[in-house]
Each structure stands twice: as structure tokens, then as C-alpha cells.
């Protein structure tokens, strides 16, 4: 699998040398980091205005809860022990090196020397221990970071610069988990202030510092002049070039683009596909296309109840549905069809196009075999008086308009085989409600996590068991002991090759069982004014970083 987590599809030359540098870096498949070239010397100073369409976080500390909007912001002022480079290799950040024990139960991290948090607290092994405790404390209300630290028993400070992670079981995903913004390191003194204060302005080691948060308006970030700890793939050393970042919350996508066009803001996220297509033909803008890691966007088939407890009916649905034309038309060529459960940002993603070849005749034959032979007046298949109806709750918070339209095409094409797809557009809480109550046959939910271990969260049978809240991540309700054992083994092996092979087998089995219909990578795009140089998306969870960025002209 070619791994290209960050690509800039800009055909124009005028956008500057940085873009060229990044394109080059990608072409070399991650052999080197983007380097500012000599002729375009970075300019110090200036304020970059960022307009975010993601929900405004309710707390800026990504340990609390732990969602993508928090990660977007936290990436500017918090840093992790490790990072990931373009090729998916784990690289040093706040930790210089690491060494697992032979049994995989203890990991010694050697920390970078001389790093201090922006409040003056030294970054040391004790700080790492405090952060992991903070993540594991129920009072923190952490969910993403808490899960990522699930196999960590405790962290011991061997000496000032050696933090020892003691695990309960071997965890091949530990480094990937630690590379995520949700497990980033915060000042112990900052955490000690209590949740309310820490939510307002978490204290990290990052290139910027939270200077104030005007709710529903913006977060002010100022440069950390003492900054000294860039990740191994950064473009320069020392403090950032930008003096400040004004991080605005602009929920309406048309307004965001208008503000970018008018020069009111320098960077926008979540541009709609038609906006990207329009901006692509305009050399005033640069497009950063950075698919999120973890799972691809996909439609899950609920195999836990009729009619999809029958593999033939699942296959029939997947054969009946035709999405390629819809993706092409509705996304204006900005999204590429996926045939994998994993994001193309994952090196270990396994694709099988043949499994998803549309074939209406085959679908009809399969449904006949499965006993869905009668049809009602609307042409919907019936079996023992039951209609072949599929409830499809769609979250309007998570599915952009283009995706909602795509689901209508799914509905139309499935109809030809005799499926009655009932789309329900719901707000986030109602959508959860429908999932908890198992009132769905098909559903689409994003999931972002660094590394293929996301497969264990999504397809291990343990994830069917709902918490009393009703939440479960295995929405396909895939319950296959062989998949379970493959995923468990893959998560605990320390042998890279064996791990890759186990994940491959697991994916073959998951895709081959027709539990899901992959659509495309989790779309994650940024449009930048062409004057913004040196910005890039982190190869961890594809959040933008402005450490190397500067404003030209």
C-alpha cells in the first residue's frame, strides 16, 4: 500500500517552494521531511488567522473526553512523547528513544533533556507519570486517551529522564497510542489547578501558548519564545516563525470560504467538496488533503440481527449498491473510493476491490437463495410477511451534505434489488440513541485512531458488549472468534512482520464476510491562502501544525 497521508494536490507553480518541497517529500514516500528551501527564507512575525468548522471544544484539555476538535487545537500547544513520519514510522519527539523489555511488559522511554513546560515546570519522568495518572483517573472523564492507556498499569520514574511504562499485557500499539494528541504531555502544575482552569488553558511544551479563549469566538495563541522541542521531522529548530495564531470558530462552510476569499482568514478547515473543486482552479489557494488515520469511512452492516445475520443478504446488499458514480459526482473528484476497512494513511491497510464489484444479478440470486422471494407492491422483497427494510440512521453532525446525498444513491441502487433503505437524518444525540437501541441495519460512523489497532476497537467481539450507556464501537456487531484471536495476537506481538501478517489475515476475513462497504478515507482538508508557507498536517492524526509556517507577502 502506498502510504500518502499528506498530499498537496496543487498543480500550480506559483504557490511557492514549500508546496513543492512537500510534494517532493511525498513523492519520496516519506524519506525526508519538508525542508524550507533557501530561496524562500521564512519571515518572522505576523498573526495567522485560522477558521475552524469543527465544533468548538467544550474543554481545551484533550485528556478530557478526547475528540477531533480538541486534537486540532491541542496540536498547537501540546506535544506527545513520539510522533509519526510520512511513511508511518514512529519518530522521536519528547522522548528521544525507547526500549521494550523482552517480554514486552515494560517500556523504558528516555526523555529529551532540557525541555520545560511554558509555565516553567521541567518536563521529566515524573511529569509523564502524572499525565498517565491523569488520563486514567475517572474524574478526568477521559475516553480516547483512557482507552489508549488501557494496557498501561503504571508509569515509574526510574530517574529524571527515564520513564518506565509497566504494562498488564504486551501492547504493540503503545507507541501509536502515545503519538496521539489525546495522550499529549501537560504540565503537572497545570493539571493540579483542577479541571475547570486546566480546560480553559492547558499548559504544554508546544510552539504556541493558550493566551485566552473567548467562547464561541476564538482562542488566542501566542508564540512560545522558549520553545525547544520540535518533532524529529520538523523543518527548523527554535521558536515558531509566527508570532500568534487567532483560532476562530466559524461553523458555516460558505462563510469560511468567503472569509478566506476576502483575506479575512488565512486557513480554513472542513471545506465542502464543491469549494475544494472551485479553489483548486484558483492559484490564490493551496489545498492540503490529509486523510485521517484509523478507519476509512464505511457503511457497516449490522450482522447481529435479521436480515443481515445471513451472509448472503449482506453480500447481496454490497453487490446491489453502486457508489462509485455518486462519489465521483458528489465529491467533485476530491474523494477517492476505498476498498479497505482502514484509512490509506495506514501502512497496513488491505484492499480488495473484487469483493465490492457491483453485480445486480448476483444480488438478486443471493436474495432468492436466502428466501427473500416475494415482493410487495413497491417492489420490496418479502420473506414470511416481513419486508426487506433497512433502517439507516444518519448523523447530520458527522455526514456532510455530499455524504448524505451519497446515501440517497445507496438507497436508490439498493431498491433495484428489492431493499427498502429508510434513511433517518438525526442530530448527534438522537443518532446515538438509535444505535444504543439497535434500531439500525446499516450505519456509517467515523473512527480516528493512529494505527491498525483501530480494527480491534471496531471489529473485536468485545466491542459489541455495550457499556450501560449502550455505547459500542463494533457497529457491524461482527462476532467471529477467529477475527478476535487474530486481532488480539496482532495487538500483543512485538514482531513487526508477524503483526503485519496477522492484521492482513484479519482484514481479509472482515472484508470477506461482507460486514462493511468501504467508501473513502475520512475526508480531512485544509485550504490555505497561498501566502501561508510551510504549514503541513501532522502524519499522526492529520491535524495541521503551524510550527514551520510563515506568512509571505
Amino acid at each position, binding site marked *: 500500500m502506498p502510504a500518502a497521508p499528506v498530499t498537496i494536490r496543487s498543480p500550480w507553480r506559483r504557490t511557492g517552494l514549500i508546496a513543492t518541497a512537500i510534494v517532493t517529500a511525498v513523492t519520496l514516500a516519506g524519506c525526508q521531511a519538508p525542508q524550507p528551501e533557501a530561496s524562500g527564507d521564512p519571515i518572522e512575525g505576523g498573526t495567522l488567522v485560522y477558521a475552524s468548522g469543527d465544533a468548538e471544544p467544550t474543554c481545551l484539555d484533550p485528556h478530557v473526553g478526547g475528540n477531533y476538535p480538541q486534537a486540532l487545537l491541542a496540536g498547537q500547544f501540546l506535544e506527545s512523547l513520539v510522533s509519526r513520519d510520512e511513511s508511518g514510522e514512529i519518530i522521536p519527539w519528547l522522548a528521544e528513544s525507547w526500549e521494550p523489555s523482552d517480554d514486552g511488559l515494560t517500556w523504558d522511554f528516555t526523555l529529551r533533556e532540557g525541555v520545560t513546560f511554558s509555565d516553567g515546570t521541567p518536563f521529566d519522568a515524573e511529569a509523564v507519570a502524572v499525565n498517565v495518572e491523569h488520563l486514567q483517573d475517572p474524574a478526568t472523564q477521559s475516553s480516547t486517551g483512557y482507552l489508549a492507556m488501557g494496557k498501561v498499569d503504571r508509569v515509574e520514574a526510574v530517574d529524571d529522564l527515564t520513564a518506565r511504562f509497566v504494562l498488564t499485557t504486551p501492547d504493540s500499539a503503545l507507541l501509536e497510542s502515545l503519538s496521539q494528541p489525546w495522550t499529549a504531555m501537560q504540565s503537572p502544575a497545570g493539571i493540579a489547578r483542577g479541571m475547570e482552569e486546566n480546560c480553559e488553558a492547558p499548559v504544554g511544551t508546544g510552539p504556541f501558548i493558550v493566551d485566552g479563549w473567548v467562547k464561541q469566538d476564538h482562542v488566542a495563541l501566542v508564540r512560545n519564545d522558549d520553545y525547544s522541542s520540535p518533532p524529529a521531522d520538523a523543518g527548523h529548530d527554535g521558536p515558531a516563525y509566527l508570532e500568534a495564531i487567532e483560532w476562530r470558530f466559524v461553523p458555516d462552510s460558505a462563510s469560511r470560504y468567503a472569509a478566506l476569499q476576502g483575506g479575512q482568514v488565512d486557513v480554513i478547515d472542513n471545506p465542502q467538496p464543491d469549494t475544494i473543486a472551485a479553489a483548486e482552479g484558483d492559484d490564490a489557494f493551496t489545498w492540503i488533503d490529509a486523510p485521517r488515520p484509523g478507519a476509512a469511512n464505511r457503511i457497516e452492516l449490522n450482522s447481529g440481527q435479521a436480515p443481515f445475520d445471513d451472509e448472503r443478504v449482506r453480500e447481496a446488499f454490497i453487490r446491489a449498491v453502486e457508489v462509485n458514480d455518486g462519489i465521483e459526482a458528489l465529491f467533485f473528484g476530491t474523494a477517492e473510493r476505498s476498498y479497505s476497512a482502514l484509512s490509506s494513511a495506514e501502512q497496513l491497510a488491505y484492499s480488495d476491490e473484487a469483493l465490492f464489484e457491483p453485480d445486480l444479478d448476483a444480488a438478486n440470486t443471493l436474495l432468492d437463495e436466502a428466501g427473500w422471494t416475494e415482493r410487495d407492491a413497491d417492489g420490496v422483497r418479502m420473506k414470511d410477511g416481513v419486508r426487506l427494510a433497512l433502517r439507516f440512521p444518519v448523523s447530520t453532525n458527522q455526514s456532510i451534505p455530499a455524504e448524505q446525498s451519497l446515501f440517497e444513491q445507496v438507497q436508490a441502487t439498493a431498491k433495484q434489488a428489492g431493499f427498502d433503505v429508510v434513511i433517518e437524518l438525526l442530530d448527534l444525540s438522537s443518532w446515538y440513541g438509535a444505535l444504543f437501541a439497535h434500531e439500525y441495519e446499516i450505519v456509517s460512523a467515523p*473512527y480516528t485512531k493512529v494505527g491498525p489497532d483501530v480494527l480491534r476497537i471496531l471489529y473485536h467481539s468485545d466491542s459489541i458488549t455495550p457499556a450501560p450507556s449502550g455505547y459500542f464501537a463494533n457497529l457491524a456487531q461482527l462476532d467471529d472468534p477467529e477475527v478476535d484471536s487474530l486481532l488480539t495476537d496482532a495487538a500483543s506481538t512485538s514482531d513487526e512482520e508477524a503483526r503485519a501478517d496477522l492484521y492482513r489475515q484479519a482484514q481479509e476475513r472482515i472484508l470477506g464476510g461482507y460486514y462493511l462497504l468501504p467508501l473513502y478515507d475520512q475526508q480531512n482538508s485544509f485550504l490555505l491562502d497561498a501566502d501561508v508557507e510551510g504549514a503541513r498536517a501532522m502524519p499522526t492524526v492529520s491535524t495541521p501544525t503551524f510550527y514551520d509556517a510563515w506568512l509571505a507577502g
Partner: protein
Amino acid sequence: MWAVATLTFFAIRLIPGDPAQAILGGPGSQASQEALDQVRRDYGLDQPLIVQYLAMLARLVTGDLGTSYALRTPVAELLGAQLGGTMLLAVLALLVAWILALGLSLWSTGRGRTAGAVGEGIELTAAALPHFWLAAVLIAIFSTGLGWFPPVATGTPAGLVLPVVTLAIPLAGFLAQVMRESLLDAMQQPFVVSARARGESTTGIRLRHTIRHASLPAISLSGWALGWLLSGAVVVETIFAMPGLGRTLLQAVTLRDVPVVTGVVLLVALVYVVMTVVTDVASRLADPRLRQEGAR
């Protein structure tokens, strides 16, 4: 007010969805059992519904609006911070709507059929314009096209122009319709003839006499209008990225943040009540007849 609080409380609980889950984020963040339990305990969500309801009432009676589930700050503080922006927006929009409506109705009445028809056409069209569409068109013309006003309101006076105009235009349509009818009505009154007989010009009559009559129904409509503007603020604040009550409400509903939703709804109800009183007083000032009745 009690009825409003009760309705809001149960309405939001009728919609499916678990506040505890919503508090802890989306599917990208799978909440742990410990975290959920903690949240439920912290916010009293593990209590029976009726207990939660009574607890809320007891709080409200003492003037305590509670603490936001999502933002973890007192609701009163939260609303206090956002009230100013939204009220400024609504009051400015009301003012602009009044000016537009007065201008339009004064211009279009008594000027013959064509002016009347054109006036009515403009009013109907304006009143029927949805905010989201109007906002998009205004942004396309005045931000993207002409570059006069920014599409994202950053607290500068220039940033307020488009949101205010977006809210004002449909409202002006409503107000002008009402004003024009009563203006036409007033023009037929005997006092107009006597004023004319005293040698008043047409414009003088309009400005000095009939305008008072015309404004009466519009004044009583303004109380309703302010409430209507607050609901319009949900759309306008979202599009122009302004901080305010509308966005607070939208976010709170999505997150099932009951204390905040109740707080906003109570506040809007309060604005209605206050505005009814204010328009009553204003009507008395504009119409001496009402004052005499009161004196009797």
C-alpha cells in the same frame, strides 16, 4: 415561566439521546464506563426523571439556573456573557427594520396604484425571505463580490452590518405590511381632511399625524418581533460566526445540555414578558386615547 421550564425539561428528555454520552464526545471518543458513571453522578443523571425535574425547579426558584453539562460553567454566567451580543444584534435589527418599514410604507401609500403594488410586492418578498438564504446572498454580494463587509463578524462595527441587515429585511417586510394598512386607514380619517384644510402639506400630514396611527400596530408587533429576532439569531449567528445566545442554544440542544437550554428558553420568555410591558407603555405614549382610558 414555570410552564416554560417544565415544557423545556420534558421536551428535551423526550428526544432520544444520552446526555452523559454526549458530554463525553463523539464516536471518535469511546467513553469508558468509569467516565460515564462519573458524569452521571456529577450531574445527577442517575436519579429518576421526576427527582431531576424537582431538583431543577427547586434550583430555579432560588434563581439558580444550574451548571452547564458541557461547558462546566454556571448557566447564568454563560448566558450573561452571550446576552449582550445577541441583544445588540436584535435591537439594531429591530431599529433598522423600523426605519426600512417606515420609509417603505410612507413612500408607497397614497401614491397611486403602482407604488402601492410595488410596495406590497417588496413587503411580501422581504417577509418571505429565509435568513439563511438572505445571509448567503448578502455575503456573496457584499463580502465576496464588493469586499465591503467581512463575512465573519469579529466584533467590529463593519462585521455587524450584514448580520443586522439579514435579520432586519424580513422583519421590515412584516412591519411595513402592518404599517401600510393602518396608514391607509388613517389617511381616510376626518382629521386628515381637517389638517389639509389648515393648509398642511401631504408630507407634513404624514410625518405629524398619520405616522402615529400607523405605528401603533407595529409597536405592539415589536414585542413579538424581538422574540422572533432571537430565534433568527440562531441562524444568523451561526452563518456569521458571531458569539451569542443563538449559537449557545444550538450547541446546547445538540449536546442535550438541559440546564443551558432551559436557561436560554427562560431568558427568551423573560424578554417576551418585558417587551410586552415596554410595548404597552410605548403604545400609550403614541396614542393619547390609551392614556385617557388609563386615567379614568
